[in-house]
């Protein structure tokens, strides 16, 4: 590949996706072509239920993710399980991904395109920032992600649905902000919290019970874990905390100081606290770790 210099009249500007569209394909590109809406998925929309079902059972799915606002920013959390049909395909998937200094994405849906989508989105944001010399506003970022999701619509018609949650710290309004999306790329700003994925409905109930305005960081982290535990309890495709293997949900906190993952030790401790509370409530008198 040569140096990508363009004439002023057909310069793709600060968009990385625009750049990909205007360049000849590179090795190993089908993934991003699909994500960027550069390739049309074949087949007839709406046929996903018939021929596609056998393929669908081979596709890896990510499951419960959530985002909630708190006093100083936002918390993003997700379970770690990926499924293929009725089977557990992967136990340590990271569904909460940092995309730039002040924002992150949590993904639900078919894992392959979802990971590609986030990679493309992160590159797009960084590319814009470097070319223009300033970051996109948080709304600009959310709109970009919406366009990527809508670009994936032909694939979604084939059953390869990808739905992200986007959350970040807005350095203009100095608050955390949460955006959810639908399959057509519609973008909705949430005032309090949002969930996505097969266990999202259960997680949302838990958030609804526990969320209050102006909650602190510790409360928000604890509530996000309670919601994941709740979802895992009701939904087979959501993986709960796994102390045997030492696999715990991913929790990230985004504040004005940036994006930071909560360390596994703290998560393990909080999960143990949630379990103890449940045991104390349901089976009073029983001490954790001892048989009857």
């Amino acid at each position, binding site marked *: 590949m040569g140096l*990508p210099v363009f004439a002023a009249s057909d310069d793709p500007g600060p968009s990385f996706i625009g750049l990909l569209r205007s360049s000849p394909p590179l090795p190993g*590109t089908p993934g991003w072509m699909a994500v960027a809406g550069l390739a049309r998925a074949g087949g007839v929309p709406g046929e996903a239920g018939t021929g596609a079902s056998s393929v669908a059972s081979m596709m890896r799915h990510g499951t419960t993710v959530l985002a909630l606002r708190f006093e100083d920013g936002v918390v993003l959390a997700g379970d770690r399980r990926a499924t293929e049909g009725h089977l557990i395909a992967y136990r340590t998937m990271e569904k909460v991904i940092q995309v730039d200094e002040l924002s992150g994405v949590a993904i639900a849906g078919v894992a392959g395109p979802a990971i590609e989508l986030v990679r493309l989105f992160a590159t797009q944001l960084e*590319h814009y920032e470097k070319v223009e*010399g300033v970051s996109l506003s948080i709304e600009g970022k959310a709109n970009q992600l919406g366009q990527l999701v809508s670009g994936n619509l032909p694939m979604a018609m084939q059953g390869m649905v990808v739905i992200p949650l986007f959350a970040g710290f807005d350095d203009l309004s100095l608050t955390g902000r949460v955006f959810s999306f639908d399959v057509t790329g519609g973008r909705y700003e949430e005032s309090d919290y949002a969930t996505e994925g097969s266990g999202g409905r259960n997680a949302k109930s838990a958030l609804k019970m526990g969320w209050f305005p102006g909650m602190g960081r510790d409360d928000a982290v604890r509530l996000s874990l309670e919601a994941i535990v709740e979802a895992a309890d009701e939904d087979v495709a959501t993986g709960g905390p796994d102390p045997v293997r030492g696999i715990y949900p991913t929790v990230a906190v985004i504040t004005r100081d940036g994006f930071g993952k909560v360390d596994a030790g703290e998560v393990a401790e909080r999960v143990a606290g949630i379990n103890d509370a449940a045991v104390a409530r349901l089976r009073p008198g029983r001490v954790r770790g001892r048989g009857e």
Partner: protein
Amino acid sequence: MTIPYYVSPEQVMKDRAEYAQKGIARGRALVAATYKEGIVIVAENRSRSLRKISEIYDRIAFAGVGRYNEFDQLRVAGVRHADTKGFSFSRGDVEARSLANLYAQYLGQVFTHEMKPLEVEILVAELGVDPEHDQMFHIAYEGTITDENAYAVIGGDAETIRSRIVRTFRRGWSLPDAVRACAAALSGSDKTLGTDELEVAVLARNGPRRAFERLSQAEVEQILKAKRAARAKG
């Protein structure tokens, strides 16, 4: 009928080189130097928004002198090249050497084939895992590429500035020392460049993934002030 007059290829090249050199000599210079934890680039630049130094990729920085619109186009092309490469292969596969070669090819091609050569000189710096692997590629207007491991000077009056930095450069010095020496080399003995005339950026080794960082005017001021205080004491 008019007779097309003959100009020898030597003369054409000489004229073009002279034209480019003149353009570059009018611009202000910049100095890059390695220090203990990275590479620092100090440019004489009065503008707060039209930058001479910028980020290309995680560990790669770009600096240009000469005509702004021309080196800025090269900068953007570098960002595009690096991001595309990192996206289709992996972040670790993006390296300065191949980018510097592309720049050299492009500049060489423009120099020989176009009417007007680009009036720019550029520097591509890459942070290594340790100071021995830090690299700086200096690419001239006609595509000549040289690599440096300690310091580099590009722009107008480069030779004089180089002769100053040669005397002060020390391998493994601290960032404040390096910034002060680079600023002094750019200034010369007859004038002192103020904070608002300097643009300073670093590639810092033990920082986040994206190693490129600009020093704010306040940070530069603090570093330069320390020098003045030390001088007053001495």
